[in-house]
């Protein structure tokens, strides 16, 4: 018996040790979110859904607004629609000593909806969000996240790193690669590399339209989410300046955006005036940009929009 327990214990210790070690190798290639739970608390944040996660590049903005350092803490609509859960996570991610921070709040109609059948209380709206299950948002390595959300064996962390290295070396020639891959940067920006030929894009756009139409059919505007958004603005104002930004999407999808909330810009303008914060509508030149699937901007367009956002923030700050 002793020999059995001794051997089993050795194997278990080795297995646990390997897992502890593998945790240190997890990085932006591990998945689309992990690294955002390992970065330190921040003074300036970009928040919102996947449009912001892929579309706003902190590196580009930080170069122009050199007095601050933005961090992209956006996820996806399922995980980071405005509500109590996301608000709490955002506030947890802020360095509490911050006084002159800046906060870009990306908005879209789909971030203010709930399922038509939803009768849940405010704190249950986002029970499926990964943020509702996380206690530690700034821990490296974040074993809580790895344990809860990495469904593959942790050895896969090494494989992902290896694959990403190979794929990144071929970034310059995207047309030779079918499919897509993502890399989460240290500043929270999710870089998505994909071929964007006309045929593939048409398919993805069609599928995005179907998805949004289906969501439209099954959703309603949530007053709770709008209220949570307004509360968030007030909370963030304690730490610095707040800017509401509406990012562009493919014109066909903007039509669906406007179908969901026909007076969206006007509504956001009212909120921005009520709370005395800036509102930047970047959809005016929506047809200028390239999109990966109609919803998300391709990285080159994301860089252009990020630059434009930074310049307009400077402009806004000049006038105030």
């Amino acid at each position: 018996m002793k020999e059995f327990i001794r051997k089993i214990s050795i194997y278990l210790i080795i297995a646990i040790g390997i897992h502890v070690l593998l945790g240190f190798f997890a990085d932006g290639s591990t998945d689309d979110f992990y690294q955002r739970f390992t970065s330190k608390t921040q003074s300036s944040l970009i928040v919102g859904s996947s449009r912001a996660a892929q579309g706003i590049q902190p590196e580009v903005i930080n170069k122009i607004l050199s007095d601050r350092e933005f961090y992209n803490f956006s996820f996806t609509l399922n995980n980071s629609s405005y509500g109590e859960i996301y608000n709490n996570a955002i506030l947890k991610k802020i360095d509490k000593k911050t006084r002159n921070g800046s906060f870009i709040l990306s908005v879209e109609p789909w971030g203010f909806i709930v399922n038509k059948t939803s009768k849940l209380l405010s704190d249950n709206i986002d029970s499926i969000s990964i943020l509702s299950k996380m206690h530690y948002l700034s821990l490296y390595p974040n074993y809580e996240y790895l344990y809860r959300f990495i469904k593959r064996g942790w050895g896969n962390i090494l494989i992902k790193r290896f694959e990403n290295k190979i794929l990144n070396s071929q970034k310059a020639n995207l047309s030779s690669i079918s499919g897509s891959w993502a890399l989460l940067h240290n500043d929270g920006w999710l870089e998505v590399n994909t071929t964007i030929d006309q045929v593939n894009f048409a398919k993805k756009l069609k599928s995005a339209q179907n998805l949004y139409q289906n969501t439209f059919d099954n959703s309603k505007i949530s007053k709770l989410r709008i209220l949570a958004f307004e509360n968030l603005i007030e909370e963030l104002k304690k730490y610095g300046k707040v800017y509401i930004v509406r990012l562009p999407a493919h014109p066909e999808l903007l039509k669906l955006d406007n179908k969901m909330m026909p007076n969206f810009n006007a509504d956001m303008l009212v909120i921005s005036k009520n709370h005395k914060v800036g509102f930047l509508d970047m959809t005016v030149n929506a047809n200028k940009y390239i999109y990966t699937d109609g919803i998300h901007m391709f990285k080159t367009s994301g860089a252009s929009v990020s630059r434009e956002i930074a310049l307009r923030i400077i402009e806004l700050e000049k006038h105030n």
Partner: protein
Amino acid sequence: MLFNSIEFALFLPITFVIYWFVVGNNLKIQNLFLVAAGYFFYAWWDWRFLSLLILSSLIDFGIGLTLSKTESKNKRKILLWLSILMNIGILGFFKYFNFFIDSFQDAFTFFGYQIEAHHINLILPLGISFYTFQTLSYTIDVYKGKMKATNDVVAFLAFICFFPQLVAGPIERAANLLPQFYKKRIFEYAQASDGVRQILWGLFKKVVISNNCSIYVAEIFTNYDSYSGSTLFLGTVFFAFQIYADFSGYSDMAIGTARLFGFDLMKNFNFPYFSSNIAEFWRRWHISLTTWFRDYIYYPLGGSLFSKWKTARNVMIIFLVSGFWHGANWTFLVWGFLNALYFLPSLLLERKKEVNSNKWSIQKPFKILGTFFIVCVAWVFFRAPNVSTAFQYLNRLFSSSFFELPSILTPKLDMVYLMFNILFLIGIEWIQQEKEHGLDLKNVSTIKRRILYLLVFSSILLFGTFGKEEFIYFQF
């Protein structure tokens, strides 16, 4: 509680330590502890259904005792039927009530009568098909005088709720497992370490093969109308490996876990995909259920003792019952029917039974591939949501697009890893055919053993998919 969950990873060592170190000196208390552990394990899923498990166990314990004291043939028959009706009644109510209601409604509609059917929102109690058959086999064996009724209620309850095999088998016979609860268990290093190896092999099958195959199977079976015949064939092959790795992986973990506690459970799978014919396949697949049907249905019906046609009828009956046992859906009945059809030619032509043989011949690989192919075709019915979808799937599979190159499903590299791991599984099991399980490494040098451990462990670590994927057979 899933075997591949963190809850079980905590439950198992705690139970192991208490079992051997705290209550190890007293057999009665040790058995009582196994009952408590079994009920805790079951209640982790849903404590409300624990009462059914206890009720079913107590009915058969009571009937068994009464049978042992009753000599009147008629009374004994009544007691047996009482047990059968109670057990099958509970199983039938939870598993088949809505199916029969739907079928009656469909039948009336077919003849032009519209009737309003009332469904009951029922949850299928976990493992009910398994423990019901286990308790029934006890009563039938006592009735037939094959074994004596036990008067040790704790041992009997422990036999029914023995946690390693409680929810998905192997369906143990009382004659094999119950006596093991009467004897003091002694810890044996060789038995326990082999148990751990079998658990490791089962875990590999579940998380590396089954869970990864399930990703592609779900995609291909859901969107079958947009894939070529060759891709659909790939989908059925993946499902064949998914279900095998899932269920035999569970059985390996169950048998391995039981060995840690000093128990020997029956073998449930004997490398079935290496079978040269369908009869051999069924001697190697889900052995505990197949032999249950053989002993308690096929033989009482006359087995193969009478005419060919009666034998064919009996085969058809057990396959249909087997299909129905799997679930309240016509797909399972068609699956059973198809397997019976595969079986009949050799039966009617009175071909000599081919024994499991490793003797190599030029035809053998073709026979193995042929058997695997027809088994795969039947699996389509097992996996499809309904019979018409299964036919549409097969119709597309056997179209001219069968000869196209299969679509490469993304992510591409994951599929390459999966293929590599399936080949690894086949290789190891081919080499280990004569052994108890894939990692039965008695008489293998230490260095070879360690290399194999390293390979299996690395595969689990690198390619395993964990999460909440239940074992397929939990639904039965």
